[in-house]
């Protein structure tokens, strides 16, 4: 177990900066997720931590040990790969035993630990199978057991669920969480799936072009996104260009959109002038077109989409903008049909962030 500290990491490939002076701290024992679209540098960052890439500048610390120049095989990490990376000619047992043998663990102790590890992932009966004779989910379990059996200081996982089908993916989330919680091991988990990140993590670092866009708990990232990129990547959000007219010290803010004034909640560092309103579809509500109410904006229902538990509305509002509103299907407004004139209520808690 160890905390991980990244200090101003820089990594370039062929002149292209992939990590731009990135600093992060992963607390001891945390389940920490690097989230972001492809090309944002999350895998590069993970591979720097693993030691497969050497950063061009900056330091990597496990606890207080500087491992920046330590070769990968001496970092005492466990790693789970996207394609599982099982040794094709070795049985499940030998795959799991590989790291123990490399550490000089032999005989009964080795067999006991491999047996325990396979037990924990529910594969005891398949110990003698070759990778080619196992399903994707089973291979992933072997890969997990192989990484955990050596009791590494940190566990690194590179999109481990992306090759599984949807159902198995949900199941494996629990398997992974149970195992790492039990081992109480610091885990860095890379994914591009925001739902996976929200469901599994203690902390998420959402990355954008080689830098951290926002760091925080899943709740914080969803409820208080710092900018439109974060809001859009995590969950879905309506983002409208607005003009802030006043910000007061009490945490209240007024903004203007399409000639009307609204009350809102200021995000970090927002000031008067151009800004972005971030409104989650489920924060918004609909009401009759008249009489006009505070924080309401007129619109016309372009399409009503019934989605089972909820109903989604596409509403055209002023300035050729559109809003997406989601209401529980049993809601009173459920009867609103395509073509109806309505008012969309934007709650005061909707955040206005810097443009």
């Amino acid at each position, binding site marked *: 177990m160890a905390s991980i500290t990244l200090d101003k990491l820089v990594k370039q490939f062929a002149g292209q900066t992939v990590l731009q002076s990135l600093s992060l701290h992963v607390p001891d024992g945390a389940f920490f997720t690097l989230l972001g679209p492809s090309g944002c540098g999350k895998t590069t960052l993970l591979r720097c931590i693993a030691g497969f890439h050497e950063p061009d500048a900056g330091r990597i610390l496990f606890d207080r040990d500087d491992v920046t120049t330590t070769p990968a095989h001496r970092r005492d*990490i466990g*790693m789970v*790969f996207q*394609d599982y*990376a099982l*040794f094709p000619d070795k049985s499940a047992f030998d795959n799991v035993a*590989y790291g123990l043998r490399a550490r000089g663990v032999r005989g009964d102790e080795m067999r006991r630990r491999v047996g325990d590890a396979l037990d924990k992932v529910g594969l005891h009966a398949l110990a003698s199978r070759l990778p080619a004779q196992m399903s994707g989910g089973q291979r992933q379990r072997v890969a997990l057991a192989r990484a955990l059996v050596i009791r590494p200081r940190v566990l690194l996982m590179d999109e481990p669920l992306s090759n599984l089908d949807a159902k198995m993916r949900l199941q494996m989330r629990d398997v992974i969480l149970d195992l790492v919680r039990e081992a109480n091991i610091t885990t860095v988990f890379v994914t591009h799936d925001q739902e996976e990140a929200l469901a599994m993590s203690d902390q998420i670092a959402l990355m954008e072009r080689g830098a951290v866009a926002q760091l925080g708990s899943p709740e914080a990232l969803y409820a208080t996104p710092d900018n439109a990129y974060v809001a859009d990547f995590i969950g879905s959000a309506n983002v409208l260009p607005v003009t802030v007219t006043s910000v007061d010290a009490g945490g209240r803010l007024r903004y203007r959109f399409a000639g009307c004034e609204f009350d809102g909640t200021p995000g970090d560092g927002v000031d008067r002038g151009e800004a972005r309103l971030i409104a989650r579809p489920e924060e918004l509500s609909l009401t009759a077109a008249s009489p006009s109410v505070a924080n309401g904006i007129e619109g016309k229902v372009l399409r009503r989409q019934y989605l089972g538990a909820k109903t989604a509305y596409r509403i055209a509002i002023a300035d050729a903008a559109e809003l997406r509103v989601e209401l529980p299907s049993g809601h009173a407004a459920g009867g609103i049909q395509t073509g109806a004139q309505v008012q969309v209520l934007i709650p005061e808690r909707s955040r206005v962030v810097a443009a």
Partner: protein
Amino acid sequence: MMRLDIRWWPWGVLTLLSLVLVMFFVFYPLGVLFANSVRGEGGEWSLASFAQLASDEDYRAAFRNSLVLGATVTALSIGVGVPFAYMVARYDFPLKNLVAILPILTIVIPEIIVGQSWLLVFGNNGLVTNAFAALGIELPSFYGWTGMIFSMTLVYYTYIYLGVLAALRGFDGQLEEAGLSLGTPPLTTRLRVLVPVVLPAVLVNALVVFTLVVGNFAISMLLGSRVPLLSVMTYNTFVSEMGGSPMLQSAMSMISIAIVAVVLFLQKRVIERKMYTMTQGRAPAAERVGSWQAMAFTGAVGIVVVLSMLPLLVVFLAAFTETSGPVMKWGQWSIGSLARVLGNSPEPIWNSLKFASMATVIGVIFAVLSSYLIIKKKNLLTQWLDYLLVLPLTISGTVLGIALIQSFNAGWIVLAGTSAIMVLCYTVRRLPFAVRNASSTLFNIPDSIEEASISLGVSPLMTLFKVVLPAMRASIASAAILMWLTTVSELSASIVVYTGGLETMPIAIFRQVDGGRLGLASAYGAALVTVILLPIVVAVKVFRIQLFSSR
């Protein structure tokens, strides 16, 4: 990512070592050859030897003949290979599975055995020749164009057949259905859709066949007797210039290389312009055919398989046939030839085994290491290694032999006259095949399994031994077998570099045929075929190795 960003230990050092070896044993000999070709009698810079060749009527005839032979055999190979491939890909008929054996036969049966056995059938005093003579019919002479074209077509059509078969099997049947649905009639559709797919495969492999025919030594030498050909003339010039200044042989070698270079250039053009990649290769199912058609197809396959296998049979028959001097007494059995070969002069057998096994071990180790560096540790240096390792493919065996003997017969490394030069020439000649074989598997081994091993605490160098090599052991075995059977039957380069005491089986066969002792030649032939087939049978039956699957 082609940066010169090299970690010197261990891969950088190994890359450098491989590069130095390849530079010294492949690139340097070609340089020596080139230097000798542009030198006059006194060692001055001169194009005299090229001028001499240009004015030599015999050489011009040989040049013409080689090109004509190449074109003829290529055309005939296309004529046999393309319909054959189409038949096998698109139709289903009795005994069709027999065709699977064809590509193996071509690799397994040495050219010298093919040439020799057709001599035993159609040559003076051949089986068929004698049978017809007994009926009072005199067959036209098999020596010269007839024999060469016939035997070479039987050897080389498989290249076209395999290439076209692969193209047809990778062909998306939906394209044909799309054509039909758009309203073109079936035959037109087939031609319009299939031809662009098959044509590049035909062209590319036709160029390969052409270079192989022009560089062919064994069959040309045995059957070509009165027809002057480049490869034979180059060899003869080498023999007659022995000890003197190697001007003419070098110039001839350079011209042979130039022919191959031109062909390779054309091939690259063809590949770049004409190759389409099928996005989705679901070949249409083979169609069952009616009775008369089935008989015709089965018959055609039967004839081709029998003709391809015949050399094996004939060589064993002849090895056990009574001989008296050059005369084969067909029908009278005897173990005299075998007894004389095994009892009195078994040296070529031991030499072949020794040289081929050493070349196989060295070649496989080097091929595995260098393809690992080329594929898994890409950088500028390994790129160069990759280019250099293809070089031996562009040189015919005769030319390679001449280059090696010119480079290592004097100076600070003298290999001529030692076993080392035989092993060297085997290794260099067949290395490209072994590299290709190892590379194809390495491509399919994901980088992540190496990283997994490293993350588990095993150093990169040990990872190569504990993870990568075990994962590719099947392909190492098949590379070794391929290396073994192509080196043990190598003739054209080794006959140039060998000296007394270094004779191998193919060389012995060649010399016995040359001396008219077909019985002894056949005994050596039988021994050669045995040492080729044994490891294959063992590999396939005992170790269940899938040979030739990666082709």
